[in-house]
């Protein structure tokens, strides 16, 4: 960089260079030049320079601009001017940037300096209020703008409605709306959108109906259709608008497609999809997601394969579809395809990681889980929030409570979900005492437990035979935290008592429950009767279950087992024959094991007669397919 004596050239070169600064070193170079040449003393140049820096996309340039504005002699001479333009530009970097809170400090300085505020200043402050979400600040700004006589300004009023709506106070926004003497499309659209987001589609429709037709634009129609998409039975109303609207765009078609899919009108969705003049990635993702949620995973996959351009959202939809339908291996394969770039290469986001971790957890593949954890660390993903919960859950489900605890300890801001996942993880490993201690620690840290916390703790007590502790927790839940026990909590209590062999006590508990017991609770009791040979209680419970859920084979099997324990073989044959008549089959036992990245699955086969004495020959025979042992490779 050369220093040229001509001031014009000095100005233009400095301005030109300032807009390209990316590193602190380059910023320091400019700073040094300003000090040496004293060109900042010229207000016109200083203003141009600051504006140049503020318009840069680089954070360092913006920070330098703020520094120049506030901490140099420029600031003292500038603050007496009546033109708020530069102040507004500074405020905008905060209100629209990563630190909207600081806008208030700058605004206060502006007011203290007696600088005249304009409608744009207020719009920026209202934007900052809506981003911060503290409505009391917004009300203060509202009060000030009324005092400054901006209360009747259309632009400012629209910003006010937007602020109230985004801060969750849609009724206050409505008050502003009702008082407006003049409204434009923005006023109506913001109000409609506000009602839709507060789940008051009926009120949004009222506003839509009173809106003059010439003011309605695509945003209006799309906002209304979008509102009906989220409402149960909103399909007809959405379709009515879709047919009536004078023009449609891609957003409209996508919304209507989504509505069809959510209302399970899959055939209509197909027709719409074929009719769409233009499709984008969102359209395809809606079809993939819709079919997967309906259980048609293979059809979802065919749509996914047809996509010319994919993005991370469509990949996530495909993975989530596989997980929802129990096809965990395929979900993991989609994730690895995303990484390998063989068919498509997109960087997974944190949602992708949450989904694939849930798949890995169900499979119980610790090696896969560890590999994904390494990927998370290498790519600096923040392990908190949902990702943290998924990691804890994965390690617990894959048999490694130590790793789960290590992830839990490393999370700085733990939410109740993290505590729940960890307590639940310790529960399934039979570490009831540790789970209970963690629960106590949670309470000492004044973290409010929720219903799921108590399910996890009660589960821990059930698996460890901690009956007294279970009863204590149940009382703490009701009396201290005032949580109304739900069916799952009662189920856990029945489980605690049943596993410990207190079948009669468990039966009385079921009879005294204020909620009608469901099949899960009854089956827990029945299972206990089967394990502890209790025919007098088990038989009526089983018969009640069979009446309620005649297609579930487990109740028949449990009853048959109880009869078998007592040697009542005629009854056993009768039950088995009833199962056969109803075409009910007992779920076959299946075990799988992961070795060197491959999952091997073993079923029990009726035709398998050899004992496992000679392991090698047993496995060789299995590989020729003579018995019902199957291998599934990832």
């Amino acid at each position, binding site marked *: 960089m050369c220093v040229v004596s001509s001031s014009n050239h000095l100005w233009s070169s400095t301005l030109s260079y300032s807009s390209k600064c990316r590193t602190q070193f380059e910023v320091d170079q400019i700073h040094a030049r300003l000090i040496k040449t004293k060109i900042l003393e010229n207000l016109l140049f200083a203003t141009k320079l600051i504006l140049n820096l503020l318009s840069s996309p680089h954070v360092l340039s913006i920070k330098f601009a703020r520094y120049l504005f506030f901490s140099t002699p420029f600031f003292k001479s500038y603050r007496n001017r009546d033109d708020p333009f530069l102040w507004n530009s500074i405020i905008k970097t905060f209100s629209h940037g990563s630190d909207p809170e600081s806008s208030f400090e700058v605004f206060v300085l502006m007011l203290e300096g007696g600088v005249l505020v304009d409608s744009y200043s207020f719009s920026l402050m209202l934007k900052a209020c809506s981003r911060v979400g503290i409505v009391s600040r917004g009300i203060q700004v509202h009060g000030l703008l009324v005092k400054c006589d901006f209360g009747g300004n259309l632009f400012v009023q629209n910003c006010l409605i937007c602020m109230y709506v985004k801060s969750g106070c849609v009724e206050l926004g409505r008050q502003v709306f009702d008082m407006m003497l003049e409204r434009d499309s923005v006023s109506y659209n913001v109000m409609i959108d506000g009602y839709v987001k507060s789940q008051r589609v009926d009120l949004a429709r009222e506003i839509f109906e009173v809106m003059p037709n010439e003011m309605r634009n695509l945003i209006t129609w799309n906002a209304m259709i979008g509102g009906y998409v989220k409402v149960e039975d909103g399909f007809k109303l959405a379709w009515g608008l879709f047919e009536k609207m004078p023009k449609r765009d891609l957003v409209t078609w996508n919304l209507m497609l989504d509505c069809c899919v959510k209302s399970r009108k899959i055939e209509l969705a197909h027709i719409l999809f074929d009719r769409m003049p233009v499709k984008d990635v969102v359209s395809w993702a809606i079809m993939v997601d819709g079919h997967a949620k309906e259980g048609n995973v293979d059809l979802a996959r065919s749509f996914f394969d047809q996509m010319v351009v994919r993005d991370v959202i469509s990949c996530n939809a495909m993975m989530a579809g596989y997980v929802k339908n129990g096809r965990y291996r395929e979900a993991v394969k989609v994730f690895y395809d995303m990484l390998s770039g063989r068919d498509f290469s997109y960087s997974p986001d944190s949602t992708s990681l949450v989904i694939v971790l849930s798949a890995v957890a169900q499979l119980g593949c610790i090696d896969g889980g560890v590999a994904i954890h390494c990927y998370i660390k290498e790519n600096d993903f923040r392990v908190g929030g949902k990702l943290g919960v998924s990691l804890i859950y994965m390690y617990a489900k*894959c048999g490694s409570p130590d790793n789960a605890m290590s992830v839990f300890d490393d999370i700085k801001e733990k939410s109740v979900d993290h505590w729940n996942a960890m307590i639940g993880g310790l529960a399934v490993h039979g570490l009831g005492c540790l789970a209970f201690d963690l629960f106590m620690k949670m309470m000492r840290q004044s973290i409010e437990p929720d219903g799921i916390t108590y399910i996890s703790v009660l589960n821990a007590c059930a*698996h460890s035979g901690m009956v007294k502790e279970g009863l204590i927790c149940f009382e703490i839940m009701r009396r201290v935290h005032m949580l109304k026990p739900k069916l799952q909590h009662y189920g856990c209590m029945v489980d605690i008592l049943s596993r410990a062999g207190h079948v009669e006590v468990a039966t009385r508990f079921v009879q005294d429950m204020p909620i009608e017991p469901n099949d899960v609770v009854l089956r827990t009791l029945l299972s206990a009767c089967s394990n502890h040979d209790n025919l007098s209680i088990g038989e009526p419970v089983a018969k009640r279950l069979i009446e309620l859920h005649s297609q579930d084979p487990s109740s028949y099997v449990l009853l048959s087992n109880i009869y078998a324990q007592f040697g009542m073989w005629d009854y*056993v044959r009768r039950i088995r024959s009833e199962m056969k008549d109803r075409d009910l089959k007992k779920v076959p036992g299946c075990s799988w094991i992961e070795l060197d990245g491959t999952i091997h699955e073993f079923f029990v086969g009726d035709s398998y007669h050899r004992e496992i004495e000679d392991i*090698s020959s047993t496995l060789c025979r299995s590989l020729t397919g003579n018995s019902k042992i199957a291998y599934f490779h990832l």
Partner: protein
Amino acid sequence: MMKDLKHAGYLPDTSEVLLDTGEEERVNALSRHSERLAIAFALISSGPEVTIRIVKNLRICIDCHHVAKLVSKIYDRKLVIRDQTRFHHFKNGLCSCKDYW
């Protein structure tokens, strides 16, 4: 594998085999349980330091639980079996569930 277990004093527990058949058939039925096949496969397919990890879709029966304990003792291996509701960590002939599942 079964020979080694029998030498260590293993006797099949057929109390959970609820078939109206003779004892030999009940023992046969036990030998076909899927987790047993998986354990056998893991023993021949993995090295001595590798923890055997198995996932099962139903509750592990008493006899398979006993077999897993013996395998962990005789072959000096750690086994981790996840059944329908919980985990069982087998080491040196003992299970983390303390036989309460």
